[in-house]
């Protein structure tokens, strides 16, 4: 393609077409551009257009097309043709920087991106002038140009923040430092001076401050890998100025926006990061400056408002203090009682307050609120930062800090007591403060596991949490209700059992609260409480203790599902399932009503009318067989349905009824197996099918056997569910007629070996050992050896040596041990290749190391009959038990 007006015209036409909403016009145009992008001069035509086109939209379109072209083609991949000819490359590199700098912002951004893509490949070796070209612009005095350069530099250098140290990388950084560090420092000083000469010119200040933000970012990148000699020598300049900027305020730079951070906030935030970088990595050199920064940052926190736009700054600043106060040699900066008090009072407490934004989320975006508050996605929030600072300070000053906060907690509670409806937020902060002060370690599974001994959790619970929850109105002060419920939930392992029992009816009551957060928390708290284990690892709260509450619990749980916003509330569903499993047979009287409600629920969700027979079980059953999509639309119910069905099936004495067989293929639907909650009840149901109907399946549904084994494959692929896969496989081996699975047998073993090779977990090995021994018992040791060796020569020996012998002792469980003892004995005694081939050496190893364990297995796990049977085998093989 020549650089001609005609070609420019053509290109313009096609670019225009690529913006057309009609795909019939757009697609061919895109295709055309793709087809010519290999031609010489194509990128130069684009550059010409983005510079000179009369239409702005074409300029922008050309710049985007150019950037994407660079992204796709610039990199030279080994053994692949060079997609951009050398002269174009040279021309692009020669022109792009001035072009970028003279372009309007929209286009500048695209070109800046393109430069960093090119830079990533070519800089520094193949683009030696880039740095000098950029540095020269610093002298232009035009800050629009300078900012363009700084932005490009930032995109080129920011990778220094995450790449591994290497000679290549450090050579590049050294080169950059040599050319860039001094001009950058001079620019930094000059910009700061200009800021004071233009202190009253808002638009000039904005430009200057955006330069400062970029300069501060470049400082971070250039100082990240190690402390460069230049910056060590010029630390005074940089740190003094950073410090001044931290303390600087200018009304002209304050923004009206409450949400979006302004330039001043961005700059201070980056300076906090820079100080934190030096404090963490270059402590020895930074020590003289650190106290000043601590004071400045602390003052900054004291004077910064509650608006959302300050959040990042505040959280960065608090995290800086938190990281410094944990260091032994900076302890003295904090240990003064007045300092501590002032940090607690002016930094921590204000940032723990419940803000308008939190209140909004609580009411209107409860899902987000719950995620942040309950599931810990609060890493960048102020509350979280304040909480981290509390924990940091507690490392050295647990006593004093606890003391100071106790005072605050008391005064906040008193404020609340004076006028609860006005001052409820004080109590919220008090509860949050107590929580962050008391919690030292926490997990989702157990709640708080280590608590500050100086905080009396039970007393606080009795005096301040219970009363709120006992209040007759479940809808008053919903935030405090949620706080109280959360308190019970997270301290469930710390609060004594009798108190937990006291709170159960209260939690059940709060399932009726209108606030989504409150009834969700109540359901979640109940669900968690039902999993708490006591000292002897048994469930702490028993079914008997729950007996008085069963009816109201079930009623309220189901009612909660009818509350606005919670019709598909997962926390409530989990609480329902957990209640069933805790209460067991005590729910029997309620089954009819429960099932009614469940099916109604299903109906409500499906919004379709079905006629159900009076026998509700069959109703659900039919529902499943006729329309799987109904179930899919409300998946939380399925596990329960399957559980009921397997109970029913297990009660059948005879062959499986044909109605059940109709359902069988539906149970193999992948969509059901994608939800982990379904897996245990579904496996149990399939096991019931196999136990009762293996022959029917083999005769009437043989074409479904691959699907059944596919389920097994799906389960075995997962570390979490592989044992379920073995349950299924064991049932298949035990019950299916051997000839029906003959053709799949080898496949099954290959699959197991693959999993063994890829991720050999203890749980998998244990299940695997039980399975092969079961197989050996069912089909004989010879069959086992033959199938192994048919997969790969000497496979049997390898498995014996590498898996069975070293791991067999890990098998646990009476039945499992029994199976292994019998299986191993069969391998030793019934397998001729063990006696007269090279496997013989293993026989000795096995009989000495592994069967040596047989006696202990025998004594612990075998009944007399089996023992006799075994000893017969052993005698036949002339093995003597010790």
């Amino acid at each position: 393609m020549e650089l001609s007006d005609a070609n420019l015209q053509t290109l313009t036409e096609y670019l225009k077409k690529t913006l057309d909403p009609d795909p019939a016009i757009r697609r061919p145009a895109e295709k055309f551009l793709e087809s010519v992008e290999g031609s010489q001069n194509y990128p130069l035509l684009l550059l010409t257009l983005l510079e000179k086109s009369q239409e702005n939209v074409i300029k922008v379109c050309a710049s985007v097309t150019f950037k994407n072209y660079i992204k796709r083609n610039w990199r030279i991949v080994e053994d692949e043709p060079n997609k951009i000819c050398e002269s174009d490359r040279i021309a692009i590199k020669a022109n792009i920087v001035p072009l970028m700098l003279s372009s309007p912002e929209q286009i500048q951004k695209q070109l800046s991106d393109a430069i960093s893509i090119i830079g990533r490949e070519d800089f520094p070796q193949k683009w030696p002038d880039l740095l000098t070209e950029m540095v020269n612009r610093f002298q232009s005095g035009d800050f629009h140009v300078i900012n363009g350069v700084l932005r490009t530099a930032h995109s080129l250098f920011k990778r220094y923040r995450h790449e591994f140290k290497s000679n290549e990388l450090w050579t590049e950084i050294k080169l950059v430092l040599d050319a860039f560090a001094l001009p950058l420092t001079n620019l930094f000083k000059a910009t700061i001076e200009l800021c004071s000469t233009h202190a009253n010119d808002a638009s000039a200040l904005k430009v200057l401050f955006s330069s400062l933000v970029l300069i501060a970012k470049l400082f971070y990148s250039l100082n990240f890998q190690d402390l460069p000699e230049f910056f060590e020598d010029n630390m005074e300049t940089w740190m003094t100025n950073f410090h001044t900027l931290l303390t600087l305020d200018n009304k002209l730079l304050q923004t009206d926006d409450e949400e979006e951070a302004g330039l001043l906030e961005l700059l201070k935030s980056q300076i906090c990061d820079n100080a934190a970088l030096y404090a963490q990595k270059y402590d020895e050199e930074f020590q003289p400056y650190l106290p000043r920064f601590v004071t400045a940052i602390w003052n900054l926190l004291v004077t910064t408002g509650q608006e959302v736009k300050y959040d990042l700054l505040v959280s960065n600043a608090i995290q800086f203090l938190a990281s410094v106060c944990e260091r032994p040699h900076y302890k003295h900066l904090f240990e003064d009682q007045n300092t501590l008090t002032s940090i607690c009072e002016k930094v921590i407490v204000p940032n723990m307050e419940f803000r308008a934004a939190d209140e909004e989320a609580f009411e209107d975006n409860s899902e987000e609120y719950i995620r942040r508050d309950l599931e810990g996605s609060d890493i960048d929030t102020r509350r979280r930062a304040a909480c981290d600072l509390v924990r940091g300070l507690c490392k050295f000053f647990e006593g004093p800090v606890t003391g100071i906060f106790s005072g605050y907690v008391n005064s906040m509670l008193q404020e609340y007591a004076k006028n609860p409806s006005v001052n409820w937020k004080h109590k919220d902060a008090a509860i949050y403060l107590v929580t962050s002060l008391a919690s030292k370690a926490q997990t989702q599974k157990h709640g708080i596991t280590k608590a500050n001994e100086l905080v009396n959790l039970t007393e606080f619970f009795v005096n301040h949490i219970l009363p709120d929850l006992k209040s007759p109105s479940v809808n008053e002060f919903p935030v405090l209700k949620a706080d109280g419920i959360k308190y019970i939930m997270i301290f469930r392992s710390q609060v004594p059992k009798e108190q937990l029992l006291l709170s159960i009816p209260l939690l059940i009551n709060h399932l009726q609260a209108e606030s989504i957060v409150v009834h969700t928390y109540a359901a979640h708290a109940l669900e968690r409480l039902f999993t708490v284990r006591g000292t002897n690892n048994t469930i702490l709260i028993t079914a008997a203790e729950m007996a008085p509450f069963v009816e109201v619990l079930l009623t309220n749980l189901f009612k909660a599902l009818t509350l606005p916003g919670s019709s598909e509330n997962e926390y409530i569903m989990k609480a329902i399932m957990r209640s069933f499993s805790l209460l067991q047979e005590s729910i029997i009287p309620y089954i009819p009503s429960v099932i009614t409600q469940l099916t109604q629920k299903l109906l409500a969700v499906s919004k379709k009318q079905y006629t159900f027979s009076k026998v509700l079980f069959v109703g659900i059953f039919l529902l499943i067989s006729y329309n799987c999509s109904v179930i899919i639309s409300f998946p939380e119910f399925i596990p329960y349905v399957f559980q009921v069905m397997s109970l029913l099936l297990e009660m059948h004495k005879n062959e499986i009824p044909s109605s059940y067989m109709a359902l069988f293929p539906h149970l193999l639907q992948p969509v059901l197996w994608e939800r982990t909650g379904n897996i245990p009840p579904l496996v149990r149901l399939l096991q019931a099918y196999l136990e009762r109907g293996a022959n029917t399946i083999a005769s009437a549904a043989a074409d479904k056997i691959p699907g059944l084994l596919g389920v097994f494959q799906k389960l075995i692929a997962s570390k979490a569910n592989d044992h379920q896969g073995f349950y299924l496989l064991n049932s298949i081996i035990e019950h299916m007629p051997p000839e029906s699975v003959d053709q799949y047998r080898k496949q099954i073993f290959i699959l197991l070996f693959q999993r063994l090779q890829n991720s050999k977990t203890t749980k998998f090995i244990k299940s695997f050992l039980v399975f092969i021994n079961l197989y050996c018992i069912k089909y004989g040791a010879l069959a086992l050896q033959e199938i192994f060796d048919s997969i790969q020569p000497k496979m049997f020996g390898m498995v014996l040596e590498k898996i069975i012998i070293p791991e067999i002792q890990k098998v646990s469980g009476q039945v499992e041990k029994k199976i292994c003892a019998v299986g191993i004995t069969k391998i030793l005694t019934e397998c001729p290749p063990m006696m007269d081939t090279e496997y013989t050496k293993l026989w000795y190893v096995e009989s000495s190391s592994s069967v040596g364990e047989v006696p202990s297995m025998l004594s612990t796990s075998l009944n007399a009959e089996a023992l006799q049977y075994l000893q017969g085998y052993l005698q036949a093989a002339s093995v003597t038990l010790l």
Partner: protein
Amino acid sequence: MPVVNEPSERMRKFKNRGKDAAAMRRQRVEVNIELRKAKKDEQILKRRSISIVSMEKSPTPGEDKNVIIQLSLEEIVKAVNGNNPELQLQATQAARRMLSRQKDPPLNQIIELGIIPRLVEFLTRADSAPLQFEAAWALTNIASGTSEHTRAVVEGGAIPAFIALLSSPHMHISEQSVWALGNIAGDGPLYRDALINCNVIPPLLALVSPVTPIGFLRNITWTLSNLCRNKNPYPPLDAVKKMLPVLTCLMEHEDKEILADSCWAVSYLTDGSNDRIQIVVDTGILPRLVELMGGPELIIMTPALRAIGNVVTGTDEQTQAAIDAGVLVILPLLLRHAKPTIQKEAAWTLSNIAAGPCQQIQQLITFRLLPPLVELLDKGDFKAQKEAVWAVANFTTGGTVEQVVELVRSGVLKPLLNLLLAKDSKTILVILDTISNLFLAAEKLGETERLCLLVEELDGLEKIEALQTHDNNMVYRAALNIIEKYFSGEENPDLQPGTDQDGLYNFSVEKQDFDF
């Protein structure tokens, strides 16, 4: 993913023999480019002899303090190139005096005068000891400058002349020559080997005797250390073998500076391949080095620790020799030392011992190295923390399950997980690898779930989760891998069945080669 884990899993069975151990032992040479200022605690490469008033009076008998003659550069050139011995001495002295002043000695100007060959010639003037001495001093100071400056001296032919002067009957001349040769040797391997090839070592060693004055002996030791210094290439083996017996003697001296410089010499000799280390080990000097490493003097402790640190980068046997010399008794003190560089070197040393076989790892436990290691990980300077992370990583790679359990019991987990916030991608990656190692051990014990809870309790889980968005690809993958493997009901993508026409799972599998 599992495929990547497999080889390392296999390597573990070899107890870190072969390739793996070599990768774990980290020599000093990781990166040759430095961004930092030259280390303040390194030994000085070159030194200038500065005139102090008291020195002005004594060394040159002919000099009278009342008649210090000021000469211009032109006058100096003229006199030096002239034939008047008196003027030659005066001019040389004037030049030397300029070169010895505290501030801005005019090295370049003097070189530009072109008088160096002449000064070198003066070195041979056995008839005039004062002239020899002044010329030697002047040249010493020129050689103390940059490589350019040193080169000017060497190219003026100074090497053989100075070596000859080592045997001068005048002690102060021979001492000055030792100093000059030290500066030349300190320039780099090229001139160091030029000196060695001119046979500098025998006359230099001959100067060491029980009656050599301390000041002189210090100079000799320092010059010897420069003759041992620098790699690429190392100093010739036979030269090293000649110097070592004298160095080991010097290490028994009571003077601090002599001890420090002889330790530096040994630290250079051990900073290399295993056969270089072996030569030092064979002298039996390790117990003395360990003793010096534990002493109170920072200037001695620093090079002694370096030398020992270098020795344990060697073979298991060499490392064992250091252990037998008592290094593990001293290391806890150094790990707790107030100076960050000492902490760092000590942790580096520890990391290389932890890269050894499990018997040596066991000795780390026996000698109670774990508590100071955990402390350092928790509160040490960042440079030291980084090394401590390596130590823990190596420990978990080569240690037995029981040893790893002992490490976890020592409280390593909390500070280790905290360091996931470190601003250094490599450190983060090493920690993630270590966490994987810990999980492998936990799996063997059937304690995976407990470790999961522990990691979560110590706020490790949220940190690992956050790393899934790290910009460094390897870090993000490693984090993702841990999350998938231990903190979610993850699946094994290779084994996942597809679906067939009737929508059910398709039971199928491709055969591969198995090797457990």
